[in-house]
C-alpha cells in the first residue's frame, strides 16, 4: 500500500523560491599528481544560473567540482560562498550544497527507501515517508522501493541517488555527469528537475558529455583546456 499511486506531475520538492546566493571562484589553482590542471581560474555564478563545465576527458572537470564543494583542498586561490571563503564556513556551506559524483553514494544492503531516508535525515531535510515514496515513484522506481539496491541495475542505482534532488532544499547543486547510464525517460525527467531548480533561483554546476539545453535561467559554460 505505497502512496506511490498518487503521484502528482508537479514537482514534489518544496516549490519555495530559494534565497539568492552567489559562488565566486578567484585564482583557483589545482594540481593533481604532478600535473597542474588549471591555474588562476576565476568565475562566479549566482542564483538562477547554470554553469556547464565542459572539456575533454581528463581536463579536470571532476577535480574542479570536488574542489568547489570542498572535498579537495586547492593549491591556491579561494572559493567564496556569498563572499565568505567556504573553508571558513565549514558546515554553514555544506548545508547549502548537494554533490552527486561518479559514485552513487548509496548502500547496497539498504533499500532505496532506507538509503533516501538516511541521506535526507543527515542533510537535515524533510523526511515524511510519503515524500520518500513519492520521490522514488517519480524517478521511476515504483515497485523497487524496498528491494536492497544491490539487486538494482546500473541505471536504477543512479536513480536512487538522483531521488535526493527532489527532497533537498540545498541551493547549490553540483552534479558530475548526472545523465550517465540513464535511459531516455530518466534523462528527460532529470532535465525537468534541473530546469525547475534553476527556475526556483537555485545554482547548478554540472558536467556532461551530452548536449544540455535547459530552457530557463541563464546557461553559462566553462571550458577547461584540453589535455588529451
Amino acid at each position, binding site marked *: 500500500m505505497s502512496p506511490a499511486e498518487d503521484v502528482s506531475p508537479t514537482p514534489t520538492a518544496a516549490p519555495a523560491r530559494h534565497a539568492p546566493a552567489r559562488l565566486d571562484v578567484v585564482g583557483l589553482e589545482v594540481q593533481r599528481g604532478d600535473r597542474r590542471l588549471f591555474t588562476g581560474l576565476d568565475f562566479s555564478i549566482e542564483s538562477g544560473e547554470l554553469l556547464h563545465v565542459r572539456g575533454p576527458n581528463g581536463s579536470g572537470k571532476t577535480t574542479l567540482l570536488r574542489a568547489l564543494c570542498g572535498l579537495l583542498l586547492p593549491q591556491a586561490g579561494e572559493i567564496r560562498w556569498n563572499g565568505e571563503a567556504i573553508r571558513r564556513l565549514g558546515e554553514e556551506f555544506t548545508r547549502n550544497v548537494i554533490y552527486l559524483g561518479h559514485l552513487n553514494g548509496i548502500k547496497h544492503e539498504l533499500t532505496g527507501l532506507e538509503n533516501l531516508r538516511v541521506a535526507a*535525515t543527515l542533510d537535515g531535510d524533510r523526511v515524511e515517508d510519503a515524500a520518500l515514496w513519492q520521490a522514488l515513484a517519480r524517478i521511476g522506481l515504483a515497485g523497487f522501493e524496498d528491494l536492497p539496491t544491490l539487486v538494482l541495475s546500473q541505471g536504477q542505482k543512479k536513480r536512487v541517488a538522483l531521488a535526493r534532488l527532489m527532497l533537498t532544499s540545498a541551493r547549490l547543486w553540483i552534479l558530475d555527469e548526472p545523465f550517465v547510464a540513464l535511459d531516455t525517460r530518466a534523462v528527460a525527467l532529470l532535465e525537468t528537475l534541473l530546469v525547475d531548480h534553476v527556475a526556483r533561483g537555485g545554482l547548478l554546476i554540472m558536467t556532461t558529455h551530452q548536449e544540455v539545453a535547459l530552457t530557463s535561467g541563464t546557461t553559462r559554460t566553462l571550458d577547461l583546456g584540453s589535455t588529451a
Partner: protein
Amino acid sequence: MNGMVGTFLVIVRRDLTLAMRRRTDVLTTLFFFVIVASLFPLGVGSEKTMLRFLGPGVVWVAALLASMLALERLFASDFADGTLEQMLLTPQPLSVLVLGKVCAHWLLTGLPLVAIAPLIGLQYHLQGATLWVMALALLVGTPVLSLIGAIGAALTLGLRGGGILISLLVLPLYIPVLVYGSGAVAASTIDLADVQPFIALLGAFLVLALAFAPLATAAALRISVE
C-alpha cells in the same frame, strides 16, 4: 546539541541495520576470535598448567586481532560506495558521525567477544573469579581498541591491502591495552585485590580515547577522501 545526539543515533541505527542485513559479519568476528584462541593448543600442545598460564595472553591477543580485522570494514565500504564523501558534505560535525560508527561497530564486534570470552577461558582451564575479571577487562578494553583502531582505519582508507596495513599502524598502539588487560587477568589468578588498579588504568585509557580518537579519525578521513 540535540541535533548531534540525533545524528549520532541515525548513524548507529543505520550501521546496525546494515549489520543485521548481514548477520554473518557479527558472527564471523566472534568465530574468528574463537578459532584463533583454539589454534594455540593445537600448536603448543595441551598441557594443563601451560594452558592456564597461556590463557590470558592468548585471549587478549585474539581479541586484539579480531577487533583489528573487523576495523578494516569500519569505513571501507562507505568509502567504496561514496557514502563517506556524502557524509563529509552533510551539515553534521564529522566527529559525531565517526563516534556513531565506532559505537555501532563496537556493539557488533566488541561486545560479543566480551560475552564469549569466559568460555574460551574455560578451554584454558581458568577458573571462577579469573573468568569474570577477564570479561570485565575486555569490557573496558575493547572499546579503546575500536576507538584507536578507527584512526588507523581512516588513514589506510582505500589503500590496497588496507587490512594488514592497519594492523601495522594500530597493533603497536594496542600494546598498552594488551599489557594491562592481560595483566589484570594474570593478577587475578594470584590475588583479586591486585586487579583494581589495572582496570582503573584501562578505564583511564577509555576516557582519553573517547575524548580524542574521534577528532583524530575525522581529520584522517578528510585527508583520505581527498
